[in-house]
């Protein structure tokens, strides 16, 4: 944050810390509620992470359980399922990134080329919509459309003689990742272009006028003006998504997968849920969660560091 000149003037007079505190007394009171909120619901769970290093017994509580050092982490690195879910997590998020990222930019540019204001407004409203539907509802769409007994996709495939018998897509391993990718693009595409459209709207229009006088066509203008102008936004979004590589959306997977597709669909968070909440292996799954959390933070920090190197003014916040 940049300091305004008044602040400089005030700091020259050097008011004592005590007067400053007294002056801001109401704000300390305002902070009280938010602080209690984060301490109880954010910091207490962080305190609970210690059970990753303990043999957690519910009746003994977090404090009373005995320490076991890195036992759970050793178990984790010997757990074949853990490697499988780690691999699935990385695979699914890499693929989503590769598919989603360019598509979002292309779709933003396409939407920007629509000159008909009403068409643009209406279609944008429609394309935002899936973002506001829950994954439970979207999951229900997907199961219906791909249903082997009454789904439209199977009906069309059978009608045109492409397949003889309906396929139960949702329980077939080979279809899970493509289905996941298509559905997540479908759900997020409309909304994810908002930030790019805002960036494009901020471009100085005289650049386009000058270019068109110089005889630049529309494609030339997009490549030479629009894309370079939104590069900082693209870089920021890329770094942000790199930071969340280990966080495949639990909601999406959980509402699309089933026992038939666990092998390819199970990611870290769904595995933690099943082993932790269903099998009640609290300490072991806390260790897995901690591993994921720490790795994610390292990714975010690396991304932040790289982008600061590239552009000193870069700030995520």
């Amino acid at each position, binding site marked *: *944050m940049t300091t305004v000149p008044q602040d400089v003037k005030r*700091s020259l007079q050097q008011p004592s*810390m005590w007067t*400053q*505190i007294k002056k*801001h007394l109401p*704000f*300390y009171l*305002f902070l009280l*509620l*938010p602080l209690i*909120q*984060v301490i109880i*619901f*954010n910091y207490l*769970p*962080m*305190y*609970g992470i210690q059970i990753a290093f303990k043999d957690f017994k519910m009746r003994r*509580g977090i404090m009373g359980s005995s320490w076991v050092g890195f036992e759970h982490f050793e178990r984790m690195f010997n757990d074949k399922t853990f490697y499988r879910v780690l691999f699935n997590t990385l695979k699914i998020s890499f693929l989503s990134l590769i598919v989603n990222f360019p598509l979002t930019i292309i779709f933003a540019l*396409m939407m920007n*080329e*629509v000159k008909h204001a009403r068409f643009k407004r209406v*279609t944008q409203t*429609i*394309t935002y*919509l*899936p973002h*506001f539907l*829950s994954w*439970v*509802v979207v*999951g*229900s*769409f*997907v199961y*219906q*459309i791909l249903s082997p*007994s*009454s789904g*439209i996709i199977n*009906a069309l495939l059978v*009608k045109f003689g492409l397949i003889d018998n309906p396929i139960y897509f949702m329980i077939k391993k080979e279809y899970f990742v493509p289905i996941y990718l298509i559905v997540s693009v479908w759900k997020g*595409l*409309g909304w994810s272009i908002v930030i790019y459209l805002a960036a494009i709207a901020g471009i100085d229009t005289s650049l386009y006028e000058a270019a*068109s006088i110089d005889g630049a*066509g529309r*494609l030339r203008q997009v490549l030479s003006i629009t894309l370079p102008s939104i590069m900082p936004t693209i870089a920021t979004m890329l770094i942000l998504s790199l930071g969340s590589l280990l966080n495949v959306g*639990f909601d999406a997977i*959980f509402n699309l997968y*089933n026992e038939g597709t666990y092998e390819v669909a199970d990611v870290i*968070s769904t595995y*933690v849920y099943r082993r*932790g*909440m269903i099998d009640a292996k*609290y300490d072991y*799954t*806390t260790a897995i*969660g901690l591993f994921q959390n720490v790795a994610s*933070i390292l990714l975010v920090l690396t991304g932040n560091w790289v982008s600061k190197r590239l552009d000193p003014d870069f700030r995520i916040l």
Partner: protein
Amino acid sequence: MTTKAIKENKSHIQQSLGGKIFNVFNYLFILFFCFTIFFPIWDLIVISFSRPQDISVLRTNMWPTVWITDAYKYCFQDPLLGRAFLNSISRTILGTLYHLTICSLAAFSLTRKDMPFIKFFTIIFLITMYFSGGMIPAYLNIRSLGLLDTFWVYILPTGFSMYNTIVIRNYFNSIDKSMEESATIDGCSMLQFMYKILLPLSKPVLATVGLWQIVAHWNSWFDNMIYAKPESLITLQYLLRRMSDSAQALQDQAAMMSITDQMATGLPTPQTIIAATTVIIMVPVVIVYPFLQRYFVQGIMVGAVKG
């Protein structure tokens, strides 16, 4: 005016064949994308109004053979659905108000740059964006707080979001500082200033964050699944989730016999009931959403531009 007209005229002349083809393709693609969004919604509407025997076969018709409302009658007679509706509505309203209160209080304090220890508090809040206890410690925490199986488990844990706080703070920062100075000179306390002047002036951002939160609460189901087991606390999304689960189990176990029997009796099948429930859940979103759509981005844009 004239230059603009010339420019438009010129760009019209310059519209190459490639440009025209692109335009057609562009509009068609966007229309197709919109169609893929309409289609699943319409498909479920058709199913929810169809007779079970009409939709148990592979069909390509997008119109019910006969319009019947049995599935809806069944749904509206189900006391569980009514309960879920009430729970979803109340968690959405209370949860959003609580969230806005907490975030606005934090955001107002974070606008004070020369307040002692404000950096420390900011860091305390910022850490929550990057690090969390994770699913299991969060569950154990809720459990030890005694919030399991209570309604408050929907409201309290989602009370704070640093991201939303920053969005609100940026907007607060964009409001003219002289406003606050004159209010203070007139003897207005900070609390009075906040709810009489600052918050009314910040309606756009509060609407934006409030809408995000409304959607998040309406769509939330995971907290219901792990924190609130009693039927009396069920929410719409989790009810639907549970119904789909059991319907899938039916299909998996090839228990189609009982469904065929049910069909013969003409009662709604799980499939039509699920479709009707999905439609009921979507209706508020789909109807209200287009009117509010611009508020979803408006507040954040102003805050981002001025902040």
